[in-house]
């Protein structure tokens, strides 16, 4: 492993989230074992990796939705393992998360979706709530869609509304789960530009989980590539593109076969065909 993947080997002044020697098991299967990740403050950090390597699980560890079976997860100076539910909820008020499908509340319109965190956590007068919501909707270009219901939005619009909702409480950390999945090129370009501009204009830290190598190459300051429950490589996207490790090369250049095998483990092909065995 590269030395810059180990947070103990670097200064923590610029680090807002840190996972140290983290292990996580589900149903007896180890998803992570000895994972070390450090997220730099103010940067856009990408978490990449083939499907099933635990990218979303890593997000759920950082947001405290699940607890590590071993190791330490620290976010904004708080040890997640030591936090009770109230402490976790206080921490989450400093975080925003964008789900893959937007996860908008389907019984509320766009305006009320964006106003939702303000109504739940503050006693602001309606006039102020309206101004904040309209400003956030303007930032994502959807002020005119304030009274549409989520069912009337396209996939890209729903994600932009979810982004407006995620930044309405002015969080320190913004987390994106597969923000580019299923978008047309125009919507993809919009989301790409919004993630960068939101990060820089509001002084946030962004964590983007994705397997879109091209988009991450444009967007991210730092990228972590996960494979087999560990960090296979970390660095700038440009550095990752030149990494000679086979698993990194296979992922970055999109090769169908390699360390991540094309074929799922199966019995001998010839024997199975000649024996005409029906898979059990």
């Amino acid at each position, binding site marked *: 492993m590269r030395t810059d993947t180990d947070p103990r080997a670097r200064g923590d002044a610029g680090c807002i989230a840190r996972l140290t020697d983290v292990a996580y098991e589900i149903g007896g299967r180890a998803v992570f074992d000895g994972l070390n990740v450090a997220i730099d403050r103010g940067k856009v950090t990408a978490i990449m990796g083939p499907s099933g390597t635990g990218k979303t699980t890593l997000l759920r560890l950082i947001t405290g*939705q699940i607890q590590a079976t071993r190791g330490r997860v620290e976010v904004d100076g708080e040890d997640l393992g030591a936090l009770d539910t109230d402490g976790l909820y*206080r921490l989450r*008020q400093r975080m925003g998360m964008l789900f893959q499908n937007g*996860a908008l509340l389907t019984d509320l319109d766009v305006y009320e979706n964006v106003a*939702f965190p303000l109504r739940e956590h503050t006693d602001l007068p309606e006039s102020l709530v309206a101004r904040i919501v309209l400003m956030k909707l303007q930032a994502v270009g959807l002020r005119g869609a304030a009274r549409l219901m989520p069912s009337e939005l396209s996939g890209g619009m729903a994600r932009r509304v*979810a982004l407006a909702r995620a930044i309405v*409480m002015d969080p320190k950390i913004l987390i994106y789960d597969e923000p580019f999945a299923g978008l047309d090129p125009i919507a993809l370009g919009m989301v790409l530009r919004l993630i960068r501009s939101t990060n820089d204009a509001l002084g946030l830290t962004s964590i983007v989980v994705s397997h879109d190598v091209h988009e991450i190459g444009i967007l991210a300051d730092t990228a972590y590539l996960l494979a087999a429950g560990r960090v296979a490589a970390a660095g700038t996207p440009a550095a990752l593109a030149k990494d000679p490790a086979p698993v990194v090369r296979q992922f970055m250049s999109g090769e169908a076969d390699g360390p991540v095998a094309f074929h799922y483990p199966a019995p001998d092909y010839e024997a199975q065909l000649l024996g005409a065995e029906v898979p059990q």
Partner: protein
Amino acid sequence: MSFVANLAGSGRQLAEKWGRFTLFTARLVVVTPRALGRPRLIVDQTHNSGALSLVIIMLSGLFVGMVLGLQGFDLLRRFGSTEQLGSGVALSLLRELGPVVTALLFAGRAGTALTSEIGLMSATDQLSAMEMMAVDPVRRVCAPRFIGGVIAMPLLAAIFSMTGIFGGQLVGVTMMGVDSGQFWSQMRGAVEMRDITEGIVKSLAFGVACSAIAVYEGYHAVPTAEGVGRATTRTVVTSSVVVLVLDYMLTAVLL
């Protein structure tokens, strides 16, 4: 041996599920005072569970009352006491049929709607999104729906009984020719406050049971299309059985 092992396994699963349900209901009760601080949400949910069930409740109540009128008239005619029809219809509805049939219809209409709505919210990450916004979904989503159901049930049972009595009167007095004065005066004489109290206690208990089961099943549904479908079925089956068992227990206590 495997039969005994299966039986033991099923028993353990049932005990585990009962334990989870009890803990969840306790959590609902704990967050209820905070949920009551948002009356608008509760009014909305009472409307969803109550007002939107009105048509089916009134229609069923009317026909149940009409059947009671027909059967009661036929039975009482054999003993020459058809003037007792009013008290028979009213007591059957207020003490038994009103709360029980309303609860069964509530489980089928409002209960399934609650389960599928919460289950789909879970399947589309809406509940996770709330947790990520530091909002407890049990307080924000489940508790108002639970309270709305508990408020709606006695009101629906009262409306069911009222339309049922009207249906009984329609058949008995208008169609079969029972004297109107005797129908209503016998009813007034026979129905006591404790009969009405029994109906209210039962419908409140059924309201708590049906709403808690519907919300629990939705919140714990496997977040897939099949999972939500199964949870919705479980809501109807479990609620119906629980209502009938509770009805026997409450009747035994209250008689």
